[in-house]
């Protein structure tokens, strides 16, 4: 049980730090209109490329400075969090539902079900994911829902593979055989006995996937294939920041840092939750 002890010690601080950042970002996203100091879309050429608050030439009320059109960077990041979180939750949940269901079926029933599902996963994973996403959005048209669909369609395989392997391991355990002898039906065993034992992995993966969804959304925004350009998105801000990197580095750096912190927090939060949830590690 040494392993469990180590992961428990590690998981405490990790869980709180990651959870804290995510909660902060989530609250900012929900209450964006109340929190944001400026209108994220308001342009003001008098205030273009203002530096962040600690540098000379900063203006009060523009904490992280402005971009080349004079829009407040902090407000844009806060409003960008809305789209990031909507995409993260919706896309990851959709991918999780599809992938975990198929993974559970493949892992538990084996045989033909497993062969068919595994081959589909193999073929699916042969597509380069980002190109696949770009292609999908190009076909579906830009917009929030097509970004969500694209991410779910690409990333369900991640859930499917992991949950299949976990389920196979659990299905070999004696407690499953015992349940069979007692007379439980196979679907009942799958849902009542096996599923609770793979839930910790699903939770960890779900959180990881939310981070990945945030990245993919940023990539799509970066190449201008996500939401309409009016709405601020982290990827969109990064794309703008890249153009003015020599005049206003902060337009690139702050959204990047926000993005990295959020993605990292999602993955660490998931790992922490898994350690917390898993009765064997606890």
């Amino acid at each position, binding site marked *: 049980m040494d392993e469990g002890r180590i992961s428990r010690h590690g998981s405490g601080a990790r869980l709180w730090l990651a959870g804290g950042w995510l909660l902060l970002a989530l609250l900012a996203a929900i209450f964006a209109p109340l929190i944001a100091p400026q209108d994220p879309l308001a342009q003001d050429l008098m205030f273009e490329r203002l530096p962040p608050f600690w540098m000379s030439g900063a203006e009060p009320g523009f904490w992280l400075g402005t971009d080349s059109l004079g829009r407040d960077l902090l407000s844009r990041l806060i409003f960008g969090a809305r789209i990031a979180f909507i995409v993260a939750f919706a896309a990851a949940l959709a991918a999780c539902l599809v992938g975990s269901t198929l993974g559970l079926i493949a892992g538990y029933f084996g045989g033909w079900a497993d062969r068919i599902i595994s081959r589909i996963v193999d073929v699916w994973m042969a597509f380069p994911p980002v190109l696949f996403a770009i292609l999908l959005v190009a076909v579906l048209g830009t917009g929030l829902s097509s970004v969500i669909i694209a991410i779910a369609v690409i990333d369900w395989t991640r859930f499917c593979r992991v949950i299949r392997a976990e389920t196979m391991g659990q299905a070999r355990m*004696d*407690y499953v055989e015992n349940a069979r*002898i007692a*007379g439980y039906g196979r679907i009942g065993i799958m849902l009542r*006995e096996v599923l609770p*034992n793979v839930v910790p992995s699903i939770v960890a993966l779900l959180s990881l996937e939310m981070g990945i969804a945030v990245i993919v959304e940023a990539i799509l925004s970066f190449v201008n294939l996500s939401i309409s350009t009016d709405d601020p998105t982290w990827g969109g801000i990064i794309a703008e920041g890249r153009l003015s990197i020599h005049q206003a580095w902060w337009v690139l750096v702050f959204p990047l840092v926000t993005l990295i912190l959020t993605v990292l927090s999602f993955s660490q939060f998931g790992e922490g939750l898994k350690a917390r949830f898993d009765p064997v590690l606890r």
Partner: protein
Amino acid sequence: MSVAVKPCLDIRSLSAVLANGQRVLRSVSLSVQPGEVRALVGESGAGKTMIGKAVLGVLPPSVRIVEGDMLLEGENLGRLQPKARRTLIGARTALIPQDPLTALNPSRRIGPQMTDRLVRILGWSGQRADVRIRQLLDEVQIRDPDRVLKCYPHELSGGMRQRVLIAAAFAAEPRLIVADEPTTALDVTVQKQILRLIAQLQREHGTAILFVTHDLGVVAKISQKVSVLYAGKVVEEAETAALFAAPQHLYTRALMAATPRYTDPFASLKPVDDAVLAGLASEIAAADQAWRRPHG
């Protein structure tokens, strides 16, 4: 024992093959009378566990029964529809498994895990199941049932888990329990207690047990009858006392000679004699030859 008594379990010339056609059970016949402990002894790979799994209907998909019948209290399992067979096996049998570490669901507390079967499968009320479980926990000498029922399996020691599993096996008053090497995964001191518990509950409940083991010492302590298995074939069957007094088959004698003795702990262990094994191999080859002729 009168002839009229219907055996609790009656296996008649059961043969099973792997996908590649290799025979793993060779016309096995054995019966367990009501309330009797029948030991099934043999070395690993002899097919002991396979017989238990066949009776309980949980053979791995790679093993196929090609011949023979299994009668559970006179009902021919092979003739029943799968659903009726599951119901019958669920109601009348139970398993005491080899590895108490994986035989309990790690994500569920002991209490619900034990009562669930009684409530869901046998349709008992929750309260009745709870009372029953506590009674059984008392019988397996678990003194703090409140704590144990709230525990997750990993919070209990191997011996405690095996006690819980024994209690669970007896809880629904099955007619037949398959005990699949129930003491092998435990350390020696605990083995003895567990064995005594199984014997005691078996006597009190009058449950028939098919006791699978590789340990002749265990056979002597717990069983009334014994079948010796080698390479999926019953090479000798007898009353336990008679077998130990006068083993008939060469393999049984060799197996007894190979058992380590506490009286002489420094004697080196004798493996089963090569000549005996060679004799067995030709015996089995001949049996397979004879078996293949009518079965193509």
